[in-house]
């Protein structure tokens, strides 16, 4: 196992024209951890995740993934990472199996046939493997995207709203699968989600962003205690609406 932290963000700044989308954030994720990146629209979650993926060059600061500086050294580690986002889709005309074959080859998966069969079983896709992806329901497509994200057995997994469009039962089942995957592989998961139940269930750590800065960063339990709230949703609203000054001062 690598000695480098899976993800290290150091004084990351990203400015579009003159507008800072991310304004000097720093955090490091431990191997095998599951962390949520929370924040309202425009808080900087997508920019942060895109920079970690190497899709975006920072204005200043440094992002490393498994020891490789992003985006400059991305090809050293991209085969060990993967992601899923509702803003990106797999080709709809291709069957599920064809999509997984293409991405498996792109990621250099050796035992691809077995891996696809395994993902089919694990994500309940076996009966759908030979159907065009575009003919599937929204929930089934989400599971296909998740299969694509897991095809290379990534050490670092970035997920944006992984259970969007899933019914509560399937969503819960997917969360369970992600939890088992991360535990089994000691993989690191960074998750952007607006589903607070999901965050509470999955994440050992929550990083709260607001206007490109980290407003708070702790375990869900400590955040609840600090803000004197019963749910993370209430904490989220406190932070988003600027009601967090008093609890934070009290905590200090």
């Amino acid at each position: 196992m690598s000695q480098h932290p899976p993800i290290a963000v150091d004084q990351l700044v990203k400015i579009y024209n003159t507008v800072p989308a991310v304004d000097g954030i720093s955090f490091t994720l431990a191997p095998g951890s599951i962390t949520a990146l929370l924040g309202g629209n425009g808080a900087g979650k997508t920019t942060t995740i895109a920079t970690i993926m190497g899709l975006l060059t920072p204005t200043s600061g440094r992002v490393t993934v498994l020891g490789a500086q992003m985006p400059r050294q991305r090809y050293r580690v991209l085969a060990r990472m993967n992601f899923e986002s509702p803003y990106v889709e797999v080709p709809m005309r291709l069957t599920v199996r064809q999509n997984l074959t293409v991405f498996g080859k792109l990621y250099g998966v050796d035992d691809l046939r077995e891996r696809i069969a395994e993902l089919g079983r694990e994500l309940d896709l076996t009966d759908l493997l030979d159907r065009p992806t575009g003919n599937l329901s929204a929930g089934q497509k989400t599971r296909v995207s998740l299969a694509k994200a897991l095809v290379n057995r990534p050490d670092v997994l970035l997920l944006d709203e992984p259970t969007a469009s899933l019914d509560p039962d399937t969503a819960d089942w997917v969360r369970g699968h992600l939890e088992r995957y991360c535990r089994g592989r000691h993989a690191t998961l960074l998750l952007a989600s607006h589903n607070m139940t999901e965050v509470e269930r999955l994440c050992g750590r929550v990083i709260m962003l607001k206007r490109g800065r980290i407003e708070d960063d702790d375990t869900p339990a400590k955040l609840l205690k600090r803000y004197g709230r019963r749910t993370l949703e209430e904490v989220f609203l406190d932070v988003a609406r600027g009601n967090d000054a008093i609890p934070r001062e009290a905590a200090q």
Partner: protein
Amino acid sequence: MSSQRRSAVAASARRISAMMLRHWYLLRSSWPRLLDLIYWPTVQMVTWGFLQFYVANNAGFFARAGGTFIGAVLLWDILFRGQLGFSISFLEEMYSRNIGNIMMSPLRPFEFIIALMMISVARLSIGAVPVTFLAIAFFGFNLYGFGLVLVAFFFNLILTSWAIGIFVSGLILRNGMGAENLAWSIMFVFMPLTCVYYPVTTLPGWLQPIAWLLPPTYVFEGMRALVIDKTFRPDLMIAALALNVILFAAGAFGFLKLLQGARRHGSLMQIGE
């Protein structure tokens, strides 16, 4: 070659083949896409073929220059369809919102470009090869009668088409789908300037040096020399190749710079206009 280098080359080849497989799956699943590949080349060849047939029976020069129009149409199709095959394959990734998956995968930009080049040849072959046989059947014009010279024509034209395709793809990556129209229309700037259907001397004097800066001009002049004067002009092919090397390097450099710009400006995260 060291074993590390060999495995890197093998991994690279596997990624390129994965992208080719992705487009093969797409073409296989869509008969309208396949039909589109062959439809326009056929219509164009038949139209120009009949025009040639008509003027050949009414003018001494054209009677002597039998095949120049059909030859020009077929060679133009290599240039036009080569670029279109490259650009459309790239656009398919944008249309399907798959470009983020590709950019986030271990596929290197040069591997992506090589895959698109191979796909453009495959698409071109599906569209153009049957049309060349139709040209024999309809008009008795055998493009393969050019022999090995055809290889020189083809290689030069496809190099130009790739160079333009690469640059246009970079523009789309950087500027989004607002630049899509360029993919469809940019080659038409080349049509009058590269003198597809007439000699360079037809152009006004001030425009001729510009025409000679474009590699396809040499190919079309070479084709006319072959059909009309029965002379192969290797000097024209060498000049075209030299210019193509510069054009291809400029296209690839432009693509990488535009990709860098896209990473800086966040364009890879946006796939709309």
